[in-house]
């Protein structure tokens, strides 16, 4: 008995701890705070996601670099050799768009079904449910940085020197991409609980989205002339991915040393390097303001998605 009473004294007193409240509906602030408090779970889930993906394959983590490289090779063969699209130095252009696209595509295609797939966990263990979808986005972010490294290596090998002056815009564009992807990922994961078709439907949507984004073609070169004629250029920019890609392409594709930049063309009375006919000829400040505005909008979109997820998760248990 004496043992028991000594440990009783040793135990931390809970008197000063704050109460956590479980109630019908939590406020957005509470939910964001819970999310932040469980960040360790998020990082554990991201790590386990990555490990599981390559656990039993012989090449392991190498696949995360190999897959995008091979995809790139295929697109390059198709669009630079067989169906020529007139973009010089196409691999660099393609790569800059693909890193952005892969992050978005991987996140959404894995996160859409994640709550249904892990319903056993959702029904038994308490944690903010959106963490499951966010873990998929986190894993995709990890692959994004790996691909960025591969991209960097490639640029070194082909001695293509990117336009470093624009690099400081990349974090802003990336954050906008992250919030947009995360918002859609948590929303889709919740909707799929109610409509299982989404798991299949999302693949079609993503395929369409791929061609709505300037990845394998140039916006300025192929789309802009037609849209400008009808004053509909804004329509194309409703796709938030577009602006993010343009920023990445502007920073990586417009070379400061490669011979292609020395070719010039005349657009609306100005002599500009050829590559700028591929990309919009905006000054740096335009990129900055647009990216900043996009980031602001995407943070709001993410918060809205959180609110919606909070509404939708209330009925998960009767649907799973």
């Amino acid at each position: 008995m004496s043992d028991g009473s000594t440990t009783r004294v040793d135990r931390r007193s809970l008197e000063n701890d704050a109460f956590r409240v479980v109630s019908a509906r939590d406020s957005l602030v509470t939910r964001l705070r819970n999310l932040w408090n469980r960040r360790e779970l998020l990082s554990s889930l991201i790590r386990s996601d990555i490990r599981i993906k390559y656990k039993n394959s012989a090449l392991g983590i190498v696949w995360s670099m190999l897959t995008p490289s091979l995809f790139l090779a295929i697109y390059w063969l198709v669009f630079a050799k067989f169906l020529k699209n007139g973009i010089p130095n196409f691999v660099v252009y393609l790569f800059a768009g693909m890193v952005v696209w892969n992050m978005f595509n991987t996140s959404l295609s894995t996160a859409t079904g994640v709550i249904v797939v892990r319903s056993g966990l959702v029904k038994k263990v308490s944690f903010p449910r959106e963490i499951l979808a966010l873990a998929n986005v986190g894993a995709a972010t990890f692959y994004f940085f790996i691909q960025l490294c591969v991209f960097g290596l490639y640029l070194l090998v082909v001695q293509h020197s990117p336009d470093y002056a624009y690099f400081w815009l990349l974090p802003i564009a990336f954050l906008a991409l992250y919030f947009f992807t995360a918002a859609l990922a948590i929303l889709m994961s919740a909707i799929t609980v109610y409509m299982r078709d989404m798991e299949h439907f999302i693949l079609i949507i993503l395929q369409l989205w791929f061609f709505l984004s300037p990845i394998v073609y140039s916006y300025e070169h192929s789309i802009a002339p037609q849209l400008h004629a009808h004053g509909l250029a804004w329509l194309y920019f409703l796709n938030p991915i577009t602006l993010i890609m343009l920023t990445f392409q502007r920073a990586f594709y417009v070379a400061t040393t490669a011979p292609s930049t020395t070719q010039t063309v005349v657009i609306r009375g100005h002599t500009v390097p050829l590559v700028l006919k591929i990309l919009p000829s905006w000054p740096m400040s335009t990129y900055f303001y647009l990216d900043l505005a996009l980031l602001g909008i995407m943070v709001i979109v993410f918060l809205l998605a959180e609110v919606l997820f909070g509404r939708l998760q209330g009925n998960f248990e009767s649907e799973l």
Partner: protein
Amino acid sequence: MTTVIKVEGISKTFKIHHERHQSLKERMLHPRSGSTETFNALKDISFSVDTNETVGLVGHNGSGKSTLLKCICGVLQPTSGQIHIRGSLAALLELGAGFQPELSGRDNIFLYGAMLGFSKKMVEGIFDDVVEFSEIENFIDTQVKFYSSGMYVRLAFAVAVNVDPDILVVDEVLAVGDERFQAKCIDRIRSFQDEGRSILFVTHNADQVRAICDRAIVLDGGQMIADGPTHESLRIFREHLMDSAVEHDRSGLLASITIDSITTPSGSFDVRSGAGMHFDVNITSHGAYSGNFVMEIFTRTGLLISRSDAKGSPVNLTPGQNRVGIDLSQIPLLDGIYDVNIGVVDPHGNTVIAWREQAASIQVTYDGREGGLVELGAAIHQQ
């Protein structure tokens, strides 16, 4: 004493879909069809749990006890009401629910710890204890998908009880594992009690509640029907089971027999240890019935000392007043008050026909030297 769990007016309503339209086509075609019915799993439940308390949550299947537990753990959101929780909480709802079969035991310990809400640093600190407790040292780097179900459960339990939670929530998990591991789990729960932590224990096994809990809460049909000391609550639980059995009894047999009273020839329930005792049980029956007769003796702390029956010689009840005699040739119990439960059951012992909980309390006086519950009369001598 600090309150760690405060449940305030919790209700939970489930929607039951009679026809589930989960595909897009079906939703489009029948936007509002498929009748939905609401089901109140919990109705306005309020109670609180302090530090240093072990509370049993009892109820038969469908009484809402698991729903309540899930609300407390935060797995389900209540429809109305609030739950306040203080301190860290580890829930053993379904052991190993958070495991990733593709990962090794080592990785899963960290993942599961994170799921329960504990930091990586903390899990590192208890890692060796977890491995030792789970007894799977040799397999810790094996993928969990190759584990036997016993190993799986042991690992999960080991994580949950070693992460040093302030509140431990246990849901019928003690039914798993072999007997030795179960004993180990009970041991661990007892040391938790000694350390002044709070435990919320859900089961429909009344014996386990008696053995572990200080207090019990009884749920029935989503309503709280008792909250008090274990033996009080369990008495209400049994009576309630009886009442609802009467309600659902089609033959009307159950209502036809009542145990009215229990008396002794002298009128006194005091007895000296070692002496014998005779009880007379008065039973009113509305029809003839031939069945078995059961007597249980409990300590005040709820420990079952003895359960005996008529051993194959049925008790024949005739319409009207009946009197059944019980002879106890000697009562070797030590000092204390003991409760007697009396019941009439069907000849196979499956169905309780009539039951009287705490039909009598006997007071035993003992002036010998032995300690414990019974006098065995051990003689110790050198040979």
